[in-house]
Every structure is written in C-alpha cells, then in structure tokens.
C-alpha cells in the first residue's frame, strides 16, 4: 500500500516535471544575481571607515590648542549626527543585496532541507522495495519540481526588484562613493594637524632637558605616520569594493529583459 503511494508520488512528480520542465533550471541571470549578492560583506569596509570618520575629533583632540579645540568640538557634534545617517546608507544597500540573494536562490536551500527530510522519511520504509537509487531520484525530482513551481514567480519578483530599485540604488552607491572620498580628504587634514603639531613643536624641545619628551614624541610620530598610511590603503580598498559593486550592479541591469508592456484593457 505504502509502496503503491510512493510510486504514485514519483509518477506524479515526473509528470509535473515534464509539464514544467522548461522553467526548471536556474537561469544565467539568477546565477549572476547570486554572485552580486555575495559581494554584500564587502560593504563592511564602508561601515568601518564611516565609524573611523565619526571619531575624527577624538583622534585630533590631544594635538589641538584651546581655540582649535573649541571649533573642532562644535564640528564634532555635527559629524556625530551626520554619521548616523551615513551608516544608514549602507544598511539600505545591504538589505537590498540580501533580498536579491534570497530571491535568486537562498530560498532554494530551505526547499532542499524539506526535500532531504522527505528523502530520509522514505528511507525509513525499508521493506517497500525502494532502494537508494530511487530515493535519490525522488529527491532530485522533487527538488526540480519545487524549483520549477517557484522559479517563475521568483524570477518575476527578482526582475521587479532590480528594475524598481535601480535609480535609488544608483543614488546610494554614488553617495557612498562620494562619502568615502570626503572621508579621505578630511583625514588628510586631520593627518596634517596631528603630524604638523609634532613637526613644529619637536625641534623647539631642548635636547638635554627634554630628552624623554623628544624620544616619546618621535615614537608617536612614527606610529601616527604608519596609522595614516594604513588608513589610506583601507580607504583605497573600500572605494574599489564599492566600484566593483556598482559595476556588477550595472551589468545586472543591462541584462534585464525589457519591462512587460502594461496589459491592454478592453
């Protein structure tokens, strides 16, 4: 009886596959979207640099005189508020990329879990005359079936999301690229303030009476130079990451089929 129902299930699955066979496979486009979505972790470098920009004043503070400190403190408040918004740009883009990733394939993994559960359920019936070969075939078929039922809807949702979000995403990417450039420029001034203070004060320190001070300041100078050099490298890398994301997104949009014409009404 059970054997009979399993066979019927297999048969039913096969006929559905025949019917839906055309849409069963993952299109090259969904693969490209998955690749694009996998770039999402690269947005982390933008986040890090925004947080670094947020703490500009804290890094400068020990090197400022009273007048400069007052001006910088005021700027710091504005910067803190602005950075809250700058960070949000990234989370918007991140959510978008994750949604694309899910539409282009992540859901499939959920279904595979279900298929596996089904397959192990079948295995628990040892005397039904179903061997591993059948079980695997069944699992394979039901996986294809699950995909072919959901694929057209997912594909439509995917194209919809790509098309509708395109202008906003482009704006976000532009803004983030601009911000990274501005962080870099601002950091160049910060560097000039920090290193410049040491550079203009050190030669006036007495070599005999202020030996310790000169030694410590010299070490600090080296460390600070290294720190700003590393920041420069990270900044370049973060900009490259964003550029890659922007290029790949542009390529996805270029592959997008034309929007379906609005339905005619009688």
């Amino acid at each position, binding site marked *: 009886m059970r054997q009979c129902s399993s066979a019927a299930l297999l048969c039913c699955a096969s006929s559905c596959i025949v019917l839906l066979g055309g849409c069963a496979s993952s299109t090259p486009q969904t693969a490209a979207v998955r690749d694009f979505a996998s770039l999402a972790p690269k947005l982390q470098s933008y986040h890090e640099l925004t947080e670094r920009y947020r703490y500009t004043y804290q890094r400068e503070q020990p090197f400022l005189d009273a*007048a400069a400190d007052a001006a910088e403190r005021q700027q710091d408040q*504005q910067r803190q508020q602005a950075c809250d*918004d*700058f960070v949000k740009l990234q989370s918007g883009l991140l959510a978008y990329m994750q949604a694309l990733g899910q539409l282009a394939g992540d859901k499939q993994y959920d279904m595979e879990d279900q298929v596996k559960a089904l397959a192990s359920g079948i295995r628990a019936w040892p005397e039904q005359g179903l061997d591993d070969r059948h079980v695997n075939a069944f699992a394979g078929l039901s996986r294809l079936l699950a995909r072919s039922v959901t694929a057209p809807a997912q594909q439509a949702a995917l194209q919809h999301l790509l098309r509708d979000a395109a202008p906003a995403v482009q704006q976000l990417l532009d803004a983030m690229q*601009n911000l990274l450039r501005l962080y870099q*420029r601002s950091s160049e*001034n910060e560097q000039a303030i920090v290193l*410049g203070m040491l*550079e203009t004060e050190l030669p006036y320190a007495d070599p005999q009476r202020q030996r310790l001070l000169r030694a410590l300041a010299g070490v600090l100078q080296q460390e600070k130079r290294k720190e700003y050099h590393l920041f420069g490298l990270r900044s370049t890398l973060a900009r490259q990451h964003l550029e890659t994301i922007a290029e790949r997104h542009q390529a996805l949009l270029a592959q997008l089929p034309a929007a379906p014409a609005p339905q005619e009404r009688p």
Partner: protein
Amino acid sequence: MSTADDIETLASQLSDCAHALHRRILQAMRPPAAPQAQIQALFGREVALRTCANGLYLDAARLAASGLDPARQQVLAVTVRAQQALERIQHIKDVFDFSAELLALGAAIASGKPEHLLRPLENLKHQLATLGHAPP
C-alpha cells in the same frame, strides 16, 4: 557644477592654502629659526584653515549645505591665487598678514553667510594686488 561639488572644491582649495602655509612655516623654522611663539601662532592658523576645510567637507558630505551665492566662483579663483602667493612671500611678517586674511575668508566661507564674505574677499584681493606689484 552641483552645490556639493562646489563646496568640496572650496574645501580642497582651503586645504591647499593650508598646505602652502605649512611649507612656509617649515621654511621659517630653518636657521636662523623664527621664535617658537611665531611658529605656534602660524601653525594655529594652519589648523584653523584645515578645520574650516573639514567643516566644508562635512557640509559637502551632508549634501545639505545651502548655496553660498555666485561669489563662490570668485572665492575659488582668489584662493588659487592666494596659494600661489603664499609660496612666493619672503618675509615672515607678510606671511602673518596674509594668513590672517586667508583665515578670515575661510571663516566667512565656513559660516555659510555670504554677507560676511565680501570684506575678507576684498582685503585678500587687495593684498594679492599689492604682492603682484612686488618683485617675485
């Protein structure tokens, strides 16, 4: 050119002026070195210029800065010339006078109030004209 681009260009220009001032400070530190108090005062101005520039970068970043007015283009041209002039000035007293005017201009730009811009702009243009007649 959009407003944000404009503001960024201004900020870069002020940064360049600060850079030119820094080179002059280092020059003044060579033997016979200027007194430390003078160097500190000049460096204070360099820091103030850089703070102005960073304030403008922040404005550009917020994309929320309101337009300054058409004087901006003029300011840009003047700061380019100011930067070149700073390279040429020989006497530390002139560097002092000059950096003070530049700073006033920077502060007026950073405050975003065009009505405060006119006087320092005129002063700086006047100084540039005087320097222009002096031998290089």
